[in-house]
């Protein structure tokens, strides 16, 4: 009976039953693998009508680029978005989880979600795992109290700022913000500044690259500009394509035709007695 329960869908939360075995493998000399990281440059700034978030689109696995066009700006609520840096699985899982919690909270209260709600849910989850859930986030949104922008560190500390950058490219992006940011930017100026900061990260930081994603959140509206800029197109594309002189040798071929599923018609003719 207990063995069946082990395989059944879990009640949620983490399961630690492979830890002992993995410890034993480490002691035998097998090194653990590297996880998919989002090397990253993520930024946010507050402009006169709301918040603008920006991110690059490169995902790395060690020194290799695993995904050239991944999405780092995650949906939390219709008026709140969150950029994530760090271990990709952690940022995706934690933003998905808090997004569902916010939706349930919206059903309970009947009101639009507030940015500080998302902030508190995220920081308490990250703090309870003492930094082992490696997610560094830039959270931004517009609610009844106005536009808000926060940064959240993997250990659970937060900052509230008018402009923020996180990730390996944060220094490159912050240099742009510190020299060109001012209060009361218009939408176009803000988007231009965010794109410039992300480009600075893309070109100067090796952990960030590919394209620029931008998300503009204002009161009652949000625009997710996926691949707003593509500053790294493929430089040379051969028109001929690849031609193979020698075909691969096939030892065995097995073809399985896919049967059409039988259609069940409701209210068919009754069987004859």
């Amino acid at each position, binding site marked *: 009976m207990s063995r069946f329960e082990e*395989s059944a869908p879990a009640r949620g939360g983490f399961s630690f039953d492979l830890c002992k075995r993995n410890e034993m493998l480490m002691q035998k000399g097998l090194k653990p*693998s590297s996880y*998919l990281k989002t090397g990253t440059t993520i930024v946010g700034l507050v402009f006169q009508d709301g918040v603008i978030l920006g991110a690059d689109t490169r995902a790395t696995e060690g020194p290799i680029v695993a995904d050239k066009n991944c999405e780092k700006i995650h949906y939390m609520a219709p008026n709140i978005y969150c950029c994530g840096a760090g271990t990709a699985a952690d940022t995706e899982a934690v933003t998905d989880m808090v997004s569902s919690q916010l939706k349930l909270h919206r059903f309970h209260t009947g009101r639009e979600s507030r940015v500080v709600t998302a902030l508190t849910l995220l920081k308490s989850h990250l703090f309870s795992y003492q930094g082992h859930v490696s997610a560094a986030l830039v959270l931004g949104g517009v609610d009844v109290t106005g536009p808000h922008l926060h940064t959240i560190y993997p250990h659970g500390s937060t900052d509230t700022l008018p402009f923020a950058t996180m990730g390996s490219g944060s220094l490159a992006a912050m240099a742009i913000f510190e020299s060109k940011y001012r209060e009361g930017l218009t939408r176009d100026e803000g988007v231009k500044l965010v794109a410039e900061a992300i480009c600075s990260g893309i070109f100067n930081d090796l952990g960030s690259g590919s394209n620029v994603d931008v998300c503009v959140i204002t009161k009652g509206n949000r625009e997710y500009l996926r691949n707003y800029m593509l500053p790294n197109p493929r430089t040379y594309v051969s028109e001929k394509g690849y031609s193979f002189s020698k075909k691969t040798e096939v030892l065995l071929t097995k073809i399985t035709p896919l049967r059409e599923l039988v259609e069940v018609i409701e209210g068919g003719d009754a069987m004859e007695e």
Partner: protein
Amino acid sequence: MSIFEYNGSALVAMVGKNCFAIASDRRLGVQLQTIATDFQKIYRIHNKLFIGLAGLATDAQTLYQRLVFRNKLYHLREERDMKPETFASLVSAVLYEKRFGPYFCQPVIAGLGDDDKPFICTMDSIGAKELAKDFVVAGTASESLYGACESMFKPDMEAEELFETISQALISAVDRDCLSGWGGHVYLVTPTEVTERILKGRMD
């Protein structure tokens, strides 16, 4: 040596025009010794959904059994096959549950979704999904596979051309990796049929 290099594997999936192909090598080794040359790494979940598992072979087999269990429960409850996007989320959740004591597996999922639109994705060992529109790779030969696929892939290939491309990419990549090889196993899936082919490669 890394845990992922204990058994050795090479997996690749590519998208074509209303079809997809998923291919793997056939070697099973214990570090540098080969113990099997016909090891199955690609499993069928249902007729239009395949999953390949790279990494530690024991974890791959256990994970496959758990996923088949969950898929059968889903089939009983919903009375229909699981969509590939849903299955990818399931695999991601199963892997992330073991975030601090993971399965040492990298899955490659390939399937035909609604309207027979091909879907491929891969994940790292803790469930970070990577959706791609062209190709995905996994295993010890992944770096060579990235290079081979980048140059050989073309969008919207027909079934026969897709088969040739994925086979050539797999064979050239595993030839540069000691831990994978001994031929290839390619599944080519179109809306009407599943073609399974075994390739001849270098036996070293």
